[in-house]
């Protein structure tokens, strides 16, 4: 699936829930199912700057594509990075760098996060795009 198709699939998934507690529950489930990083990977230099909780993001160039791994100490932050990984993982670096992430707006996530947490989300996206640019 392309980045756009991945985003559309996520929007569909979330449309299934009316209540925001259920949407959060889904984010939490995504966080729980994201494969955790090994403790030795949880290094200072992998920390995403600008997040209130600790979020580690690791990326590797695999041909034209970028492979991502991530972890977080808070589960909602982990769920959010899991969503981003769902969209960006193993996509071409150039496309990640140029992607517009409409799904965040469409799910309504940005409006539902406090400003500090919305900043954290923006920092995660920025960090993923910086990796992609470096690998493009």
């Amino acid at each position, binding site marked *: 699936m392309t980045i756009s198709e991945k985003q559309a699939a996520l929007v569909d998934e979330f449309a299934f829930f009316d209540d925001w*507690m259920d949407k959060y529950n889904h984010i*939490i489930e995504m966080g729980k199912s994201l494969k955790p990083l090994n403790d030795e990977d949880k290094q200072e230099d992998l920390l995403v700057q600008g997040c*209130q*909780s*600790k979020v580690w993001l690791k990326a590797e160039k695999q041909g034209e594509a970028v492979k991502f791994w991530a972890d977080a100490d*808070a*589960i909602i932050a982990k769920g959010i990075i899991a969503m981003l990984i769902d969209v960006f993982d193993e996509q071409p670096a150039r496309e990640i760098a140029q992607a517009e992430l409409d799904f965040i707006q469409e799910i309504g996530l940005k409006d539902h996060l406090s400003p500090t947490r919305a900043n954290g989300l923006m920092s995660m996206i920025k960090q993923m795009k910086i990796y992609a640019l470096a690998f493009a």
Partner: protein
Amino acid sequence: MAYDIDYIRSQFPILDQQVHGRPLVYLDNAATTQKPVAVVDAISHYYYNDNANVHRGVHTLSQRATDAMEGVREQVREHIGARESAEIIFTRGITESINTIAFGMGTLIKPHQNVVITALEHHSNIVPWQMLCERTGATLRYIPINEKGELVLHSLEEIIDENTAMVAFNHISNSLGTINPVSTILMRAKAVGAWTLVDGAQSGPHAKVNVQDWDLDFFTLASHKMYGPTGLGILYGKRERLEALPPYQGGGEMIATVTLEKSTYAEIPHKFEAGTPHIEGVIGFGAALNFMNSIGIETIAQHEAELLDYATDSLSSIEGFTIIGTADLKASVLSFLIDGTHPYDLGVLLDQQGVAVRTGQHCTQPIMDQFCIAGTARASFAMYNTKEEIDLFKAALESAVNMLR
């Protein structure tokens, strides 16, 4: 007389609203309290009727604004038991109050001297002293805490010694709720001739402090934590101390005469009030003090103590619930962790259910480091909170925990 909670809640219209479809339960009072109608009305009344700059024009509005502001200065003097209203300085907040003193002491403190604070302080009572010590070569010392979050006083005589210039500490800890043994610390400070500052940020809404009973050199309060407007702090200083300190900021209001070569400074309190003051904030704070006193600070404190006991008992039945800060003497702050959950996640899910709590380090990073934790979730109670709200809080917490585990 029974505690008239319905009347009190009716004075805080903001409480009557839904957040994410649930009734708002506001438990972030240690960060800031809500404002009663009387405070908002006083500010509106001032802007509709009396607004003018103070201490200058001879015109009627200016005189009214000046009288209103100076009336509150006298009201604050009475509230904290100062000798004279000139000892009451209006600042921007506690941060500015402490910076005013720490900056002023830069010309007085010697490199061999030390400043003593505690391991329980808010960043606003740490950083200004670190800056003072960096500028002057003086040393900063800490009174440590134990695992309950209480100050450890057995080495007080070594920590506060004859080279101690200032002992500055909070009355009540904002992140743990510990009520500190003020008299014991003051006694030692007085014995070595050190200056003293008590930070009343968290005690202002719960306890009446008399600065002469404690013979304090400095005392500071925050209006917005006492049901008053934001942007206003109170700095009390003994006349001789305030006279010894140089002014913190230069500008209008704080001068006696200005020539292009040299200015002379006004008498206290104006020496420390450069620029146009926060007039409506002062007036609103006067209304807040009247409102608190009309209910009675001791009555409020008793209500909050009941809420704290109720919440402590009730929440402790949640599996894995740990209170951070279990001092024998505590004010209405409940800092906690729950096994298998992160405080940030709890904060988000509580908010989704209408419950407002604080999460994080509460501007007290050294305390969190000492407990080896990244932060806590903190519920703090005020005069308008109820046991029913604590029940809602507990139910919301239980659903959050079920989702997170």
